[in-house]
Each structure stands twice: as C-alpha cells, then as structure tokens.
C-alpha cells in the first residue's frame, strides 16, 4: 500500500468501522441511512461489507450445522442435541460433586439435626402426657365413685351407722341436697345419714333389695359432673355405669345434684330401681 493509499485508507477508517454494525443492524436509523448513502458511492466499503457478510453467514451456517468438533457426543447429532447431551453428562457428574451428601460445602447439619431430634423428643413427651393423661385417669376410675364403693364396702361389712334417720327432709335441708327416697316393689328403705365423698358433704340412703343392701349416695352437681367420663356417659346415655369388683354402680343426675346407686346386684337391676 502506497503512502497515498494509506492516508486515504486512514481517512476512510471511520466508515469501515461502521460496516460491521451496519451489517448486524446495530446502528440507529439515522446512522443506518447515512451509512447506506455512503455505501452507494464507495466501492471499498461495499467490498468490506460483502466480506463481513460472507464470513458472518458462513459462521451462521456453522452454528446451525452438525458439530464439527471431534469427540462430540454423536457425529450425526445436531449441535443443540449434542450440547444438551453433554450438558446432561456435566449435570450427572455435578450431582455427585455438588448435590450429593458428600458435596464440597456441606451444610452444618449435625447441630441442627441433633437440635431437631431433641425438639422432637420433647414434643413426643408433651404429647404423651397430654394424650395419655385422660386414659390413665380413666383406668384409675372416678374418685367420687371409688369413695362411694369404699364407703359401701365398709357399710356392708358392719352395721348401719347409729345416726340414721328416716326424715330425709331434714337431712336434705341440712346438706342442701335434694333427697328423694326410692320406692318400689321389693325395695325397703332402711334410713339415711350424712357422709362425705371426696371431702364434700353427701347423703347416704340405704335400702334392702332382694336381701341385699343397696346404698344411694347423693352428691352436689359440681362433684357429680367433675369428671369427663361421667359427663360423657350422662350426655350419651343418660346415666353412668361402672363396676368395681363385686359392686355395681349406676349414677344419674338430679336437680343440681347427682345420685350414685351402689350394690351387689346386676346393673340393670339397679337401673330399674331408680325408675
């Protein structure tokens, strides 16, 4: 290239630098219009454009053609398929190195793991207490009923208390409990007296039924309904039934009170008594 040509070329360099952006649609509309006008009258820039375009188009075909690189996944595969296959191979290896338990930067799982197990154990204990307490209580029975049966057993082992009365009205007023004597065929009222169940005042009314002693314990409403098992039974069936050893117990609610009939008779016989 002569000096004249070189000077001309350098003066023309700014236009040549615009050829590639013009070809690649990277110029603004105004720049594009100016460049198109220049190209119309400039043979070297048109040749530069033709060369850039020829190379770009040839590379574009390369990008869309089958992979020309050696060791590709499949010689007949398209680039996207081959690249996807290679990407899958990379992913498989990465899963082992990064996403497996033996990855490079393991999470501080030990502390949290033990903390988690500890919390789980505490929760299990709380649940066991919360859920197990009612069933344990149920197995232990209703304290009011236990007291009544214990009192009944002492009574049948000895004699009736000396301070019995047949005037239940006075006793009812004294204890502030509604007392209603059971009457019926084969039922003999023996007498009544004050007693206590669970430390609360109660009335005991003794009967002779079929040569056996049956005692009716009348307690206040709050004491009678103190336990969920009694409340549930009364709500479901209208009465509470239990067995402690040889003794049967039938309970039913009254006017702000409750009665427990205890005796060594079948429960259905005790139930018929109260009717």
């Amino acid at each position, binding site marked *: 290239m002569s000096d004249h040509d070189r000077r001309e070329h350098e003066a023309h360099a700014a236009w040549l630098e615009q050829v590639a952006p013009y070809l690649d649609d990277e110029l603004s509309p105004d720049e594009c219009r100016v460049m198109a006008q220049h190209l119309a009258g400039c043979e070297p820039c048109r040749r530069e454009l033709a060369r850039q375009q020829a190379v770009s188009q040839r590379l574009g075909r390369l990008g869309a053609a089958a992979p020309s690189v050696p060791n590709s996944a499949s010689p007949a595969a398209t680039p*996207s398929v081959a690249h996807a296959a290679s990407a899958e191979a990379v992913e498989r290896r990465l899963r082992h190195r990064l996403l497996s338990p033996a990855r490079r930067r393991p999470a501080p799982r030990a502390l949290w793991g033990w903390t988690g197990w500890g919390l789980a154990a505490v929760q299990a204990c709380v649940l066991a207490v919360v859920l197990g307490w009612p069933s344990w209580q149920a197995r232990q029975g209703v304290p009011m009923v236990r007291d009544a049966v214990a009192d009944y057993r002492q009574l049948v082992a000895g004699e009736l208390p000396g301070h019995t009365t047949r005037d239940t009205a006075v006793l009812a007023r004294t204890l502030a409990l509604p007392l209603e004597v059971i009457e019926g065929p084969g039922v003999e009222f023996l007498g009544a007296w004050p007693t206590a169940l669970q430390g609360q005042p109660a009335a005991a009314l003794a009967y002779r039924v079929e040569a056996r002693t049956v005692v009716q314990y009348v307690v206040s409403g709050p004491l009678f309904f103190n336990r969920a098992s009694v409340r549930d039974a009364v709500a479901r069936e209208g009465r509470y039934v239990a067995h402690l050893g040889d003794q049967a117990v039938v309970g039913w609610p009254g006017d702000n009170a409750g009665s427990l009939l205890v005796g060594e008779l079948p429960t259905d016989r005790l139930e018929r008594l109260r009717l």
Partner: protein
Amino acid sequence: MRFLGHFSSRERRYRRLVQPHVTHLVHIAMQRTGHAALAEDLVQESCIMAWEKLEELRSAEASRAWLVRILLRQVADHRRTRSRRQALLPITDIEEAHWQAIAGEAPGPFEEAVAAQSDSRVAALLRRLPDDFAIVVELHDLMGYRYREIAETLELPLGTVTSRLARGRRLLAALLVEAPEAVGGVGTPGEKEASHHE
C-alpha cells in the same frame, strides 16, 4: 438436610440460576476448545466455581453473563497452564492483505471461496484466532448475541466489541481463503509478530 425433595436454599438457587445455562456453557466451551470431553470438564469446573461463589450473583438476569465470564476464565486458564500455546498469527500482515484485497479485487470469488469451506475447517480456523477476537465472533455469529449483550458479558466497552468483531471476521476471512498448506504454515510461533491492538 434433604428430606422428601426438600433442597437447601443454596441448591434451589443453583438450580434456578445456573442449571438453565449449562447447555449454553457447553456450546461455548465446545466452540472454544473443539473437544467435547475437555469442554465438559471446563463447564463442570465453571459450575463448581459458580456454586462456591453463588452469593456474588445478585440477580437472575445477570446469571448467564456471569457464568460465561467464569467459563471463559476457565478456558483461558486451561490454555495457559495445560494445553499447547495457541499458534500465533501475523495479524498485521493479514490485515494489510485484507485492505489491499478490498481495494482492488472484483466481487464474487471471495464469497464463493468462503462458502465452499468445510465446517471442520471453518471451526478449526476460528479456534486459531486470538481469544479476544474469537470469543466476540463466536458469541455474535454462532450464538446470536447482540453487541450490547457481548459488552455486558465480557465487561467490555461497546466500541471494543464492535472493533473486535470486525477484525475477527477479517482475520478469519484471510485464513479461509488461504491455501490449506499455507494456512497450516501461517503463524507458527516465532514467525511473525502476533500482537494485536484495539
């Protein structure tokens, strides 16, 4: 702790920001190295580096460019330390010949010669270009990046991208129309000055 499909936040972040771009990384690595197994190794190392530096990535939009930069550093490191040095090209002479050609040649023969080249030869010659030029040409002409995307990915000024793309095509054009035996002899180390300037 992984439990019934539960992943750590790092794993979720990795799956969202890195995994979708692995195929694209493979594409670039294949083009840069010309060797599938090597490309996979380089992508794998790039993904591991991305995993370890995941906190540096601030937005999903920037993830592809960030990953490409990591990959290109891996490719450059590999070339520096383990592979043969890239054969040096007499860039100044090639460009001089180019300017002479466009000043005097008739249109037609060059385009026909370029179109007639086999894919394997085009790919091999593309890998002979200096990395700075080749990656810009590959991202634009093979992978469809726009100038601004290349500038963001490589963290270069837009003017540098424009210049490198044009010069990279010119160099490749010169190599493509050389006779095969001449191409093989061009640019052997020590033959000519290989420096290039923006």
